Structures are given as C-alpha cells and as structure tokens.
C-alpha cells in the first residue's frame, strides 16, 4: 500500500509504502523513495521519520533508517496502536535543503 503526501511546491517527489501492507500493530517497515524535480533519485539524503496518531495521548514513534540505496530508503518503525497515523518525513539534502512531507496511513489491529 503506497500513500500519497500532500503536494508541495518544491518539485521533489517522495513516496511512502508500508510493509507489511496494510500495516499492522507492532514492528513495521516503511519504504521511502525520493526523487528530485527532474526525476533523478536522491541517494544521499538524511531522513528523519516520525509517526504520530491522529488523536491525542499516544507518544510519537520515531523511525530509523536501516538501508538506503538509489533514492530508496528502508525505515524501521513501531506501530503502537491501531488507527490513523500521520508519518512526517523530513529529508535533509546534501546542500542543506529540507524536503518535508506528511503521509496519512492507517494501521490495523493484528
């Protein structure tokens, strides 16, 4: 399941896919791809990934990049509760620019 982020003016294209799909409570993975406005994969970005539920009262889950190649990043994350989440991804490029996107994602009970 791939989710779409809010469109942005910067021209970069970021996609997010969850594994397993659909995501379920527990340990999960996110596959993030990032391409520049010309469509070229961005391979050397530093990613900060944070998942928050849509409601108050759950602490955020922070993702950790476990593999990165050719603009494709694998991120480990823990889904602590079923429900609606927002995944915020900030990619810091080698020139210091920060590309940010928010992805809505639904996590299901096991």
């Amino acid at each position, binding site marked *: *399941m791939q989710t779409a982020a809010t469109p942005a003016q910067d021209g970069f294209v970021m996609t997010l896919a969850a594994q397993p799909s*659909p995501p379920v*409570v527990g340990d999960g993975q996110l596959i993030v791809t990032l391409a520049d406005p010309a469509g070229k994969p961005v391979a050397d970005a530093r990613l900060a990934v944070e998942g*928050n*539920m*849509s*409601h*108050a*009262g*759950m*602490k*955020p889950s*922070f993702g950790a990049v476990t593999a990165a190649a050719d603009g494709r990043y694998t991120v480990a994350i823990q889904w602590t*509760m*079923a*429900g*609606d989440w*927002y995944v915020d991804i900030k990619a810091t490029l080698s020139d210091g620019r920060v590309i940010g996107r928010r992805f*809505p*994602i*639904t996590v*299901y*009970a096991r």
Partner: protein
Amino acid sequence: MQAPLLLIAALIIFDGLFGPQLAPKNLATVGVWLHYRGLVVLVLLVAGNLFCMACPFMLPRRIGRWLRQRLWRGGRPVPRIARNKWPALLLLVLFFFAYERFSLWASPWLTAWIALAYFAVAFAVDTVFRGAAFCKHVCPLGQFNFFGALASPLEIKVRDGAKCAGCRTKDCIRGAQGCELALFQPAKVGNMDCTFCLDCIHACPYDNVGIIGRLPTAELWRDSFRSGIGRLSRRPDLVALVAVLVFGGFINAFAMIGPVYALRAEIGRRLAGPNPTLELALIFAVGLIVLPGLLLTAAGWLTRRQLGPAAGSLTAAIGRFVYALAPVGFGMWVAHYGFHFLTGGLTIVPVAQSFAADVGLYRGGVQWGLGPLVPGEWLFPIEAVCLYLGAFGSIVAAVQIAREQTAGSRGHALAVAAPWLVLILALLVAGLAIMVQPMEMRGTLMYRKP
C-alpha cells in the same frame, strides 16, 4: 480553583488556534480530550463535582450576571418551556454526534473553537436569564458532571437538620449568596444540579452546611422530593438525560473499536456509497434512541407485571428504575476515559514543554518518549474493575429501588428488580466486550479496511 483553570483554558485556546495542528502535539487536544475528560471522571469517582466548582466558564457567567443586574434589572426568568434538561440534552447528543462526525479529538483548531463557543454561550445565556440558567439548563458538561456525581462519595448537605428548622433567614436560598440553582439545603437531596459552588456553605450563618461524605449511589435508592428538582421519577427530561448518558457511554466507546468501522462500511454499502453523516446518524439513532427505548420499555413492562396494579404507568416504572443504570453507565465512562488518560497521561509533559518552547519560555529538550501512566497490561484489569464497580452499584440500586416499591418482601423485590438486573448484566458484558478489543482511533482518514 477557577483562576488556574481559566488560565489553562486560555492556553488551550491559544495553542489550539495558533499551535501545531497535530492532535498529539497540541495543548488543546491533549488537555481537553485526554486530561480534562480523564480527570473529570476520576475526580467524580473519588470525590465529587469539583470540576463544576472550578469551572472556568464562571468568569463569563459572572460578567453576564453583573451586566444583567445593572442593565436589565435582574434579567428574565428562563422561559417555562426551557426550565428542564431538554436544551442540555439536545446539545449533548449534538456534541456526541459532532465528536465522531468531525473527529473533534483530532482537531486542535475545532477544539479551541468549541471552548470559545462555550465561553460565548455561557456569557450570553447568563446575561439574559437569571437562575444559573447556563449551568442548570444548557451546559452539557455540567449535566455529565451531575450524572457522574450520583456515584460520588461527597455531597454538599446540611449537618444538622434541627438547626435548619429553627432558621428564620434561610440565607442558603434567599441570601445574597443563596443557591442560584434553587437548591434549598434542608430539602436538597443528592448531587443532581449541585455545582459545588459552595455559595450555600458561605451563606449559612450557622456553619451548618458542609461537604460531607456519603455512600455513593445511595441517593438513587429513594425517590424523595428534591428541592429545585422535584421527584426524579417524574422528570421525563432527567430520565432521558440519564438514559442517553448511560447508553452514550457504550456508544462512545464502541465508536473507538474495529467493529464500528465494519458496521459503517456495511451501512455505506447498503446506502449505495459511503455517507459518514448518515452512517453515524443511524448508529446514534439506534444506540441512543431505538435500543434504549426498546430495552427500557421491556424492562419496565416486566417490572410492571411483577408489581401489579400498584405499579402505576409504564413510564412511571421506567422513570423509577432507569436511575439504577446510572452507576454502570458511569463505570463505562470511567473505563473509557480512564483508558485514554492512563495510556497518555504523561504526554502532557512534552506537549507543555513544546508549547513553552514555541513561545520562548523553554530551551531544554522535549521528552517525547513520555506517554503511559501505567504498563499496558494493567489497562484491561483497571477498565474491568471500573465496570464491575459500576455494575455492582447498579445492582444494589435496582434492588433497593425494588425494595422501596414492594415495601419489604425480599423475594418480591428481587422479582421486580430482575429485568433491570438482567439489563445491568447485559450492559456489563457489552462493556467488557468493547474494552477487551483493541482500541482503534480512526475516522479522520476514513479508510475502509481492505
């Protein structure tokens, strides 16, 4: 106590309007939907209606009262048609619906506007009408507190009735600080309509009114005349309010678990396409009107059969026994709101740190790792205890009400109470079935399960 809550309300509104629009990171959503609700039910359970006592909306009410007395010679009485709980009940149902339909828990902005609207309505109502019109007839939060306080261990009441018999001045009702809600202390029974404002305590020249401990729910056992209220059983508005709050507790929690989404999807399919408004309207109509109506009618009819000619009308039987359901209904609210509070009680720390950092008052690290107050495996046992306690209180109340109705015979009393005992146990099982399922917080994204 009102000043600190007023300050907190101001911060909540500010952050809700101008802060981060992500519910777990905003004071408005965390403060209102997690801490306010959680603390309200816990304080009602262990003490009494202290949140009405500390109500931040008292300030606009006081300004309204001041204007009313100066500009409109004391203001107008509440119109007879509205001198009941129907306006508050209507607002309460609208709020329950809006909470689900517009995912209020997920919107700091809407949460802030609700608080602002509350201040505005409190001010407007009490500027025009006298007699604590807002608290008594309009405020949905207050009605919830009155309902929960039926099970509270504290009550404001007279210490020595004999002293009141000799009192000529009746300051507790007539004095400058006399009860705005028309509760005359010597004839006041229980916590219904009492905002714990302490005016009567301050007004009594004999120091004969105080906050006094009592047996929780015992006020439900007798249907005596209550000052400012009348008999509970003869107030259809109060009967409806209690029924809606009892069943509303279950519907509100049901809306947070997986099956509701399957049900909504099924309704959507039968309606030829998703229609969130209609789906929720149907669920609320069934859960708050049709199902309670059928269950209460069936229980009342069976009780009436057992009581025989002395039973009175069907509505009288329902009106007398429906209050026995209040403890189990309140138990469900405590279990549900307690769950949220216990799973995220500590999130207020990083949210407050983040807010302080945003306004330049804090430069340290934000402890986003803080969250639950208790280990996850404790949650269901705690929820279950809340439900068991509520069901126990309801069972005792139903039997006591039946004993009052049957004038002594225990066997007959049990037979009279039996339909209500079955209903209470059914509600207990329903509550456990809801709570044993993983709580899911969806609705904002409106995804359908694949």
